[in-house]
């Protein structure tokens, strides 16, 4: 089961990296969204996979039933999902604003903070 998931994680990572290598900020954002999911799957696989028994202590019991899933990766993923979701929302808004203000989504043309014709420092008085 882990092997299948590893291949899936690899596919996610490849897609994410391919998209992030693009010049266009919207594609990079899509890549980042996929990257977040790739990492979540990775954590999930890293915690080893079991089937069908959720990690919930039933009423009247003191411990987890045998063969229950590992709850820690789920907690980690929940945290990571919340974080990557909020970052994605922020970056989406930022990209939209950047498109409005700068008129482009091509990162090569976003030279406002680092202008190309920045003068050299003076060499003498």
């Amino acid at each position, binding site marked *: 089961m882990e092997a299948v998931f590893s291949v899936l994680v690899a596919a996610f990572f490849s897609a994410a990296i391919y998209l992030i290598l693009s010049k266009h900020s919207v594609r990079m954002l899509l890549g980042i969204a996929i990257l977040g999911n790739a*990492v979540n799957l990775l954590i999930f696989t890293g915690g080893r996979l079991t089937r069908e028994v959720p990690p919930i202590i039933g009423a009247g019991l003191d411990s987890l039933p045998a063969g229950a899933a590992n709850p820690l990766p789920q907690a980690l993923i929940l945290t990571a999902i919340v974080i990557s979701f909020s*970052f994605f929302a922020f970056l989406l808004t930022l990209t939209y604003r950047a498109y409005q203000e700068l008129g482009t989504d091509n990162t090569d043309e*976003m030279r406002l903070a680092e202008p190309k014709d920045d003068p050299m420092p003076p060499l003498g008085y």
Partner: protein
Amino acid sequence: MATPSSTPVDLSAAFVMAAPTAGDWLVILPPALMITVGAVLVMVRHRIRLHAPIAIASLGFLVFLDMLLLWKVAVEGPVTMTMGRWLPPFGISFTVDVFGALLALVSAIAALAAGIAAASDVNDSGRRYGFYPFLMLLMAGVSGAFLTGDIFNLYVWFEVLLISSFGLLILGSERQQIDGALKYGILNLLGTTFFLIAVAYLYAIFGTLNMADIAMRVGSLQGAPLMTLSALFVLAFAMKAAAFPVNFWLPASYHTPRITVSALFGGLLTKVGIYALMRVMIMLFPLQREELSLVIGIVAVLTMVLSAIGMLAQNDLRRLVGYAVIAGIGNMLAGVAIGSLAGVSGAIFYALHSIIAMTALYLVVGRAAAISGSWTLEGGGGIYRLAPGFAFLSLAMLLAVAGLPPFSGLWPKIMLVKASLDIGAWWLAAGILVSGFLSTIALGRVFLFAYWRPQAAQTPDAPYGPSAMDWPSLGPIIGLTLLVTAFGLFPEGVIRLSETAAAGLLDPSRYIGSVFATGGAP
């Protein structure tokens, strides 16, 4: 569900039974206090008159708490508190050693300085937008990162400080800021995602996230892909710390926000990356650090030499200081590459110096631009005539950043050069010296052009003039300059503390002992 009617169970199997002392609470108080104050400031968002007094008072209290914590840790050794009473490694542990406490204290001082400086630099609309709440949450993230003993928790604090830094970076929403913030945001998010990937592998290998637990198990582990893991950690933290060749987000963004925000970022953020790099590579994976030391060393030399050349090529004062931040990172990486007690303590001292000096240098540059009316070397000038006292303070700070006596930049450089010569890495020592030489030229030129030269007749491009005696902006500069001078003139105490911190990293047995003192099942 725990109701009083259920049968009594043996709590000591799962719980820490010893009640925490008042001193133990110091471990958690800094981030908890910052979050609480941040929440209050968010609630009174519209009463902006209240923001500065509440924030500055609580930052002052934070400095006090961190001082107590450092004192306690220096006297008694590492202190641990595990959240929710669960036995470590099951609960999230906050573990503080001298290394973490030192950095927490110094960064709190830098944040206090920036908080005071913001009282004059950040205008009403910036405050309404939430400068002080973001500052509080940023400090929660920074303190939490320095004090936590759990690596996933470290990741969470990284994200807390990252998201508040986004808020601070786009404060004002000018076009330049949006451009800078986009690059900063995407590249930093990538950096923390790499960190998370590394944490995922770490968990898959060790099955634990408690750093003390990992440090204990790492020696007896056979056949695990620890080199891959370490390389991922180095990449992730190098990205956060702005090491060449993954540092291009820093010069693209650090000059765009308000100068107080730049000061905070330049002082604190990259140092959190260096802290995490040292914590993970020196304490958790010493053997892998040894293997990677050549790579880290080459990265260190390239970082500091290329950024010093970058300083020489800048006309904008803020961008020049941005490259100075990166040059400091190169020096600290050199200490990590050396890895001996002397090298690591040199790197720790350098980090302390860099937090103070970079915050101060940004504030100095901001005030200089306000006096002369220009951010550029070309357009500035005449400050020596307009404000001789301030020019004197600035000279002190420029010398400190360049690493010249009698200020604090000198000693860590000496320690690092000596440590690298001791292990025969002459090229590392040469890199530190060449980078120091080039920075001295660049910073000396700042003084010549922006201060000494008569004012150039140009239209101002920076906000014109604070009044001559503007305490909120001058006070922090004076305080930080005094601190840098004191570190430079009386370095023994700091060197001793840095050496204790380095020794604690190189031999984590006391750190581990503090976490598992209560008899946790490792």
